């Protein structure tokens, strides 16, 4: 019960954040963003037609009125229709699952592999496996995401390379299809996050290893591997959870955006990018408010998980 109350309080505290995000995004993307008028006009428009279209799109209303309209849409969760005529909620329902199953494997694998590598590096701290892993991590951090994507595509998918997977596109109708389409994006996502994740995990683990209670345990002659798992990992959980949780919103939109537009996958990232480029405001508004809500949820969930992991953290 206490947790529910706490969560509700936190959610309420998140309202200013949602307000801020929607205000900033609205000003940037909707008010100053691309203008759809001229995309909608025919080849030989008259001034009257231009005014008609602007009126249709609501561009002739003052800022405040449009913003309030936006807030109303968020509360009622009714964002109207995208410029294709499709209801935005249908569009979201169609694209979000695609992005989820596209990004999830790389996301999970990236963190798991990163953690394993970090454990290995920490275990052999200062010796060659550590140095090797860290050197590779720095290399991984130094390659741009785009270069990674292009590189993987050339090597794994092109007829000049190994030609193992489809070059682009998406088909999740069966497990086999899904695996063949998801592999290259997954590898690219993993690769690009791996360097950062490994370094982060290693630094937290190493930090923890120098603590007194670890030294004490070692002095008692407990085996190193057991210390690593029992004493160290347990104490590292909080920073780990934070790391994972806070990368969710970024990966969900940011990572999906690049991967999806390059591989032509009809997920939320591609839809968002196209909405930015064409000025499809109903879609933009929905995405922006959803990310803001997702972010607040992540924050609240993160705080609750703290409590679960470490009862010493009070729900103040």
């Amino acid at each position, binding site marked *: 019960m206490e947790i529910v109350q706490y969560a509700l309080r936190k959610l309420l505290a998140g309202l200013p954040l949602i307000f801020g995000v929607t205000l900033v995004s609205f000003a940037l993307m909707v008010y100053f963003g*691309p*203008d*759809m*008028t*001229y*995309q*909608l*006009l*025919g*080849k*030989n*428009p*008259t*001034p009257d*037609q*231009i005014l*008609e*279209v602007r*009126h*249709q799109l609501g561009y002739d209303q003052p800022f405040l009125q449009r913003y309030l309209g936006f807030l109303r849409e968020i509360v009622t969760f009714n964002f109207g*229709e995208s*410029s*294709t*005529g*499709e*209801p935005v909620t249908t569009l979201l329902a*169609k*694209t979000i699952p695609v992005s989820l199953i596209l990004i999830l494997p790389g996301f999970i694998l990236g963190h798991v592999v990163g953690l394993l590598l970090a454990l290995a590096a920490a275990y052999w701290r200062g010796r060659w496996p550590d140095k090797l892993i860290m050197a590779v991590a720095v290399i991984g951090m130094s390659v741009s995401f785009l270069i990674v994507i292009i590189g993987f*595509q050339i090597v794994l*998918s*092109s*007829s000049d390379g190994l*030609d193992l997977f*489809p*070059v*682009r*596109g*998406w088909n999740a109708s069966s497990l086999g299809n899904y695996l063949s389409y998801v592999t290259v994006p997954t590898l690219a996502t993993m690769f690009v996050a791996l360097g950062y994740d490994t370094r982060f995990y290693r630094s937290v683990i190493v930090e923890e290893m120098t603590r007194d209670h670890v030294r004490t345990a070692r002095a008692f002659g407990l085996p190193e591997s057991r210390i690593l798992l029992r004493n160290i990992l347990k104490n590292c959980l909080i920073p780990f959870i934070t790391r994972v949780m806070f990368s969710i919103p970024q990966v969900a939109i940011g990572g999906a955006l690049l991967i999806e*537009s*390059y*591989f*032509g*996958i*009809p997920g939320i990232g*591609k*839809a968002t990018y*196209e909405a930015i*480029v*064409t*000025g499809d405001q109903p879609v933009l508004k929905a995405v922006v408010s959803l990310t803001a809500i997702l972010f607040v949820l992540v924050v609240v969930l993160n705080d609750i998980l703290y409590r679960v992991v470490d009862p010493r953290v009070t729900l103040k």
Partner: protein
Amino acid sequence: MDQAPTTLDPVQGANIYANFVIVNAYDTLYSYQYLARPYLLKPNLAVDFPVVSPDGLTYTIRLKKGVRFIDDPCFAGGRGREVVAEDFIYSIKRQFDPENQPQGAWLWQGRITGLDEWKAAGSDYAQPVSGLRAVDDHTLEIRLTRPYPQLTATLAQGYSALVPREAVEKYGKGLGVRPVGSGPFRLVSYDTARVVMERNPNYRQEPVDLAAEGYNPATQKFSGVQALQGRSPPFVDRLEFNFINESSASWSSFTKGDEVQLTVLPIEQIDRVLASKRPVTLRPEYAARYHVYGGLEAGFVFTAFNMDYPEFGYNPDPERERRNKALRCAMIKGYDWEARNNSWYFGLGEYFPGIIVPASPEFDPALSRASVTRDVAGARKLLKDNGWTPDNLPTVVYGTTAGTTERLFFEQFRAWLRDIGFPQDKVVQKTYANFGDISRAWKRSQLPLVAKGWGLDYPDAENTLQLFYGPNASPGSNDANWKNPEYDRLYEESSVMQPSPERTALYHRMNQIVLDDCVAITGISRTRIYLWHKDVIAVPDREILGGFWLKYVDLAPDSPTSPATGKGG
């Protein structure tokens, strides 16, 4: 294809990508012969060509009987109702209802009696339009305010496709993702990556008559289309359009064999794939697997000077205006069409003087090529003689959409202008986020140079000549804002004439005026190279014919990709 349509509603079917899908989901009264080049109209849903009254003002068109819309819940009982003349009238009215954000109204604006008044009175569908009358369910009468020889061609455009009122009323804006028509295919799914359509099982039986489609055995036998003789389209059960922005990805998808069966050759692959360019032939390893066909664009790319800018165009000071003309002529002389052709169009594009494109029946191959031949020395001399120096030359702002190719266009252009004496910092690029934003700049006359492309809406030079007609100035299609009384007079005179040598002569005179006044650096028609797998029977086109040919696509009987599925990149 390299871009996805934004909506599948004919009322907004402005881009060719949307049109590709629209003409397959819906019916138009007219379409084009599959194989005839240059393009020739043919009746589609209409029984025959319109009967035109002697004054050229009344068109009577008979519709085929027994054509039904696809089955859809919007109809009573879910069964598609018969297509009638009233559907056409309703569909044209939709183009004049601001609620729909229509894009095709300009084709009929000021042309059809009572239509503009109908719109001014509030676009009430219950009210009749005097110029659009259904004599009976299968007879249509259109009355014009003045002769409009291009009218029949406008009825072959996706904008004029017949939409059932029931579907609009049931789905509203949702019609954009759920077409309900009577075309050869029906939509299965649509997203920004892919459109899937399947055969409309109730499509009318109309056996192919190759002769009537303009079949030319000498040039088209290779494609295998003769096998279609006497059979009724559509031939494939399923059509798939993949929209792929990155040409490299689209190409690899094509070469892998089982993903995409038809594609446009990306420019960067040319040297690897082609053995010769004129004629277009493939290297042996590709020739064994694919058919190839080089098709000239029915349209062109050009750069117009915006005459509203006193630095280049009209100026209150007549002396400056005279020098401005010299400046424009010098920039035209400095332009390197050959290099542009080689870098971007395989060296296969056709660059030509003036604004009547090679795909127009009125194209004049005898016109002097001086305006498309680079002459750096001449350009420098012209500038010098007219008192232009690096210090007093105006800054050239070259507007483009954001993108690599566009940036390289600019860099190339800048290098050419430097050759004729422009300092590097006086040629600047201005980028726009998307086509809509740059269109806004054009329509508001905010760019001194307008570099754009124009695709023919119908095979008649009138369609490009109107680009320089004075009353079409911004926000109309005359982005140059050029106003020449002689030109405008000739345009008005020719616009009511039926095709004839006299009309062609007027067209040629107008073309010459554009050239003499140095209003545009023009132009080039690009060549697209189509490649398709050997087991696909087709003669592809994405110009005037647009999506009309897809119903004629067939797969050879021993195709490995059976059951018959056509997939296009």
